[in-house]
């Protein structure tokens, strides 16, 4: 790796850190706009003013926002995510197991959708204008255009209601055998794969088509290269950057998708936890869940950018 690449990568990492701080502050700021006094909410209506004031002091609610932000940040660095308002359990304990569940769901979806989408996107670009290409394009536009919950409800209608192959709800704890596992994950994974692949197919296709119109691909044609050689040896290596970006951006749709899918299928992950926390206005829990999602998203786009930088042949 040359120093030019190293510099660019370091610069990109620095940007990621700055972005992270801004995002954390935004999350903190948004959640502290919550109307009503946290202390009185916590103590209920019967609380005496003295008790409320005491709690406010104890929770440092009277400090300026920036100070509370810094204290919260310090806590995060020590792995202290705070205590849930709703059931007074440490947030870390509430999140722990559910985080693993969500990662499993996201992981399986990624393993399925990335190869699927890349294959479809690249082949559609190769056969541009064919019936196959137009079918892929129309279906992916359709999927992108409808809300995730609709893809999910359609999947339920098809697989659970008409075909009766799969249960409509997930419950990870009852998984005893492989078939159980498939039945539990199938529905959420199918839904998520659809949602994410559609985006990825479109972007991959566009990236490959753009490189296919470059002069060096025309040059390959004039050397007598076959269509597959033009795509695989000349277009793809140069479309790598945009494709990685497409993958990362589409995977970030996982975040949105997961929120809907976990709720619909009653899947015990952090997204479901967070939606419930929003309903009960459980501040520390919302903050922590939001932070985890933002971190994941930021991680994805940073990695994608770094791969794109490193795959740029001009920087070699």
């Amino acid at each position, binding site marked *: 790796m040359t120093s030019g690449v190293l510099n660019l990568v370091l610069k990109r990492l620095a940007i990621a850190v700055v972005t992270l701080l801004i995002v954390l502050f935004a999350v903190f700021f948004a959640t502290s706009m919550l109307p009503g006094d946290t202390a009185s909410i916590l103590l209920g209506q019967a609380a005496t003013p003295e008790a409320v004031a005491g709690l406010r002091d104890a929770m440092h609610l009277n400090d300026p926002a920036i100070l509370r932000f810094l204290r919260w940040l310090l806590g995060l660095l020590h792995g202290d995510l705070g205590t849930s308002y709703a059931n007074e359990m440490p947030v870390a304990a509430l999140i722990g197991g559910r985080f693993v569940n969500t990662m499993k769901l996201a992981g399986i979806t990624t393993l399925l959708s990335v190869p699927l989408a890349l294959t479809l996107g690249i082949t559609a670009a190769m056969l541009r204008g064919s019936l196959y290409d137009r079918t892929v394009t129309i279906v992916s536009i359709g999927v992108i255009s409808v809300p995730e919950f609709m893809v999910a409800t359609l999947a339920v209608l098809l697989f659970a209601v008409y075909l009766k192959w799969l249960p409509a709800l997930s419950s990870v704890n009852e998984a005893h055998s492989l078939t159980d596992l498939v039945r539990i994950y199938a529905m959420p994974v199918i839904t998520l794969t659809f949602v994410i692949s559609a985006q990825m197919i479109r972007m991959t296709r566009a990236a490959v088509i753009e490189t296919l119109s470059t002069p060096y691909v025309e040059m390959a044609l*004039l*050397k*007598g290269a076959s269509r597959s050689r033009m795509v695989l040896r000349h277009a793809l290596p140069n479309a790598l950057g945009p494709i990685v970006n497409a993958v990362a951006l589409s995977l970030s749709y996982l975040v949105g998708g997961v929120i809907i899918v976990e709720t619909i299928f009653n899947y015990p992950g952090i997204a479901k936890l967070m939606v419930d926390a929003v309903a009960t206005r459980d501040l520390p829990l919302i903050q922590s869940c939001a932070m985890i999602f933002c971190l994941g998203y930021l991680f994805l786009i940073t990695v994608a950018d770094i791969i794109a930088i490193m795959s740029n042949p001009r920087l*070699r």
Partner: protein
Amino acid sequence: MSNLVEVRNLKIEAKTDAGRLVEIIKDVSLDIADGEIVALIGESGSGKTTVALSLMGYARPGCRITGGEINVSGRNMAALSEKERAKSRGTDIAYVPQSAAAAFNPSSTIMEQVIEVTRIHKLMPPEQARKRAVELFKALSLPDPEGIGARYPHQVSGGQLQRLAAAMALISDPKLVIFDEPTTALDVTTQIDVLKAFKSVMRAGGVAGVYVSHDLAVVAQIADRIVVLKGGEVQETGTTAQILSAARHPYTRELLAAFEPKPRQAHADADAGTKPLLRIDNVTAGYGAVRADGLPVIRAVNSVSLVVEKGRNLGVIGESGCGKSTLARVIAGIHPAAAGDIVFDGRELERTARKRSQEQLREMQIVFQYADTALNPAKPVEDIISRPLAFYHRLDRQARSKRVDELLDMVRLPRTLRYRHPSELSGGQKQRVNFARALAAHPKLIICDEITSALDTVVASAVIELLKELQRELGLSYIFISHDLSVVEAICDEIMVMYNGERVELITPDKVKASTHPYSKLLFSSVPKLDPTWLDGLVRDPELVSRYGHR
């Protein structure tokens, strides 16, 4: 069949944006004998590249070969299946593109791409192909022939890439090589090396060639025969000597006439030439970080001084990267100077345009090379020309409209063009609108930055004539920046030669042949002449070339 290539009644259609079919090649026929080099010459849009590519059975996306025969070594490329065509591409017929920089895949090494043809068609084992490539690199006088193949395209200069593209074409011993304007993007001193290299390998191998170009002088050096194209039709065909000495077709004569030197009469005005209009002293400008002494690390313009007198023209000439365009931008205040003084019409100018007064801005206008990007595509011509009228002169709607008509008359454009958008104009028309906008400000000095470089020869010489006329009528001064000696000679009273950011020499056009500085000598001697023996007879001091040539 006696000839290597026999094209008969070729027709090619293109589809416009609106879906209309237009015949862009109308009934073209031509022959190429074994080992013969035929030039296709014409302006942009004449169909010369389209015809050349059709020899490979290829039409660019949106175009279609609709009629005629393209016989190459006995096979009709127009009738073959795509698979059959692919078999002869790279083996029988090879292609050298206009911009090798764009035609090399950036993510693969040069050697891999040079020998790719032998892999695709399984012509020889890779080891042998690499050896052959190195031989070709030597024959094309490329530096470091053993090592250059391991590099990536972006690590090699434009002139070298162009020769590497020729090696890529020649590796399979083709019968016919198509050169698509292969030296157009190069500087003149580099162009000579590339031309010489092409000529010697083609001659040594007895390979037939098609040389597509808009430049008659370049073509004269390399072609046996010339085919003149215009509007998708063959205008005239003949041996190089015939075309150069006894052209029959009026269009060919026009092309030739554009080469005639039209020296400018010396100024008769007693008044002009006495007072300096613009004087710049020791101006330095550049890019990158600023050092402790206030000067930038990378200097594009290094301590340059010049004087432009009222009613006189100064030409600035030099090759790409010599700092001539930066100099223009420094004078106009677009790129602020780091050091030095600019005095315009007796008053010291601020270095950045933003701090100059509106009157100062009005009196000095700049016209750019590419009219495509210099005119806002979203506005009709009248809006473009009338903006300076409203901005500087506060004319009302009616007065503006009248003045737009006058300005269109001045630049010899029909008044009805005022309602058109730039995309609906030809290259020459756009450049005239571009110039009319500068005139609308009623300036004293117009800085012309390569304004004829993007135009066809015939159109460019018409624009130069117009500029001269307007100067006589309006008493303007021009700073004329160009890489093209003939353009500068035609219009300027003085010529400043720049090299590597510095002023090398200041001479008058009549003294060009007697230039004293070695770089000026090299530069001026590198401009191709219409004489077909020019390149072979050219003797250059190798020491000079290695000192100043841009490889």
